[in-house]
């Protein structure tokens, strides 16, 4: 089944953004989390301390679990960030950038 509910809604024109090198479809006004989940992506990041997988949890900006790297900047909440055409989204591993050795 599709994960977008099509009944009763016209989403307008689709666009794409890049997730870990793969194109992901989104519609204007969708959040990054919404578009990723619609594409069947559940894992958004791995944790810094034990590399455990995490995804969307509270869906309202409170839990800070759905962090992704966007255009090179780490720690964006996928549930609070609107998808934009051409943006580069990456799975966030740990801090989402170089760590001190």
């Amino acid at each position, binding site marked *: 089944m599709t994960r977008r509910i099509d009944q009763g809604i016209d989403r307008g024109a689709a666009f794409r953004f890049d997730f870990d090198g793969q194109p992901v479809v989104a519609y204007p006004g969708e959040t990054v989390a919404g578009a990723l989940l619609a594409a069947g992506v559940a894992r958004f990041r791995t944790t*810094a301390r034990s590399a455990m997988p995490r995804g969307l949890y509270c869906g309202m900006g409170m839990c800070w679990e759905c962090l992704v790297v966007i255009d090179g*900047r780490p720690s964006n909440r996928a549930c609070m960030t609107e998808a934009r055409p051409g943006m580069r989204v990456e799975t966030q591993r740990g*801090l989402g950038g170089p760590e*001190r050795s």
Partner: protein
Amino acid sequence: MPRRVEIAVIGAGVAGLCTALFLARAGREVLVIERGAAWGESSGANAGTLSLQIKRNEVLQVSRRAIELWRDFQEIDGIEVGFEQIGGLRVATSEREVAMLRRSQGEQAALGVETEWLDGNRLRDMAPWLGPDVRAATFCGWDSMSVPLTGGPGLARAVERAGAVLLADSNVVSIRQDGGRFRIGAGGNSIEAERLVIAAGAWTGQVCAMLGVDLPVAADVNMLTITEPAPHLIDRVITHIGGILSLKQYPNGTCLIGGGWQGRGELAAGTRETEHVSLMHNLRVAMQVVPDLAKLRMVRSWAGYEGVAADALPLFGALPGVAGAYVNACARGGYHQGPALGEEMARLMLEGRTGLDMRAFDPRRFA
């Protein structure tokens, strides 16, 4: 039945625990009496900055020795104090501050603490993350950082391993001198001690008053802010010639921002809150020095007491007029200096003299 000990130490912050550690290691019987939980006040709430070059000239020698001891704690004694000697930059952001920094560098060199002058490209090469407002900095290889959060429990265990006893939740409310002994009333306990060390931090004035000694101790309310964990950005301990910034990034990616900005609160009422506008100024200074901080989120801020004597020098030595009583408290930047002040206090009590010159800190200066 009162509990009898040879030496009672009042206060289980860095000053009290380090004093107890060196006394116990020398085989003395020590009881540390703590009002709340060990490490629960300044020593647990501070920034863990161990910067030699920001210290007043009078405490440079003590502070240098202290860095050696922090390293020993970590590397020899295996206490998790989070010690890392990454070197520090003390920055200046105006002509006036550049002149102050020059003067300070000269004074420190004369006292045997060499720092490296950095400006222009040499400064940017070492620290490309500094903002354009930073005109110059001195680099001090001694400067280090530590993690107060984990240091406390480790140090408390080391103190106990050395044979001292820790008595928590025992507020000292009365001290009497009786037949050459001190009778201490603390949280329902009665304790008898031959000698006494007051290491009660910001409360040192109150405790000394129990023995009729008046020392001018003020309680500053310092604020700190910590950021979300972020990728590696800052790899030195940053301080400011104006004394208005301390900044470092921990291995877990969080950045800790302070600088002695004052919150609100009263020691007597037990209140210590952040102050909105000061906090904003603190973070503005941080952003001026490291502009990339603007992109990070702040996650928590807090405030803690720092006890400071009127002249901002440590209160270290025999308590005037009370034989057998000593005070070890209120060094500005006292977390850093704690181990060396503890070592010297133990030496003073055991040998009757100190290794370093501690005369400027004698509490008799206020008598």
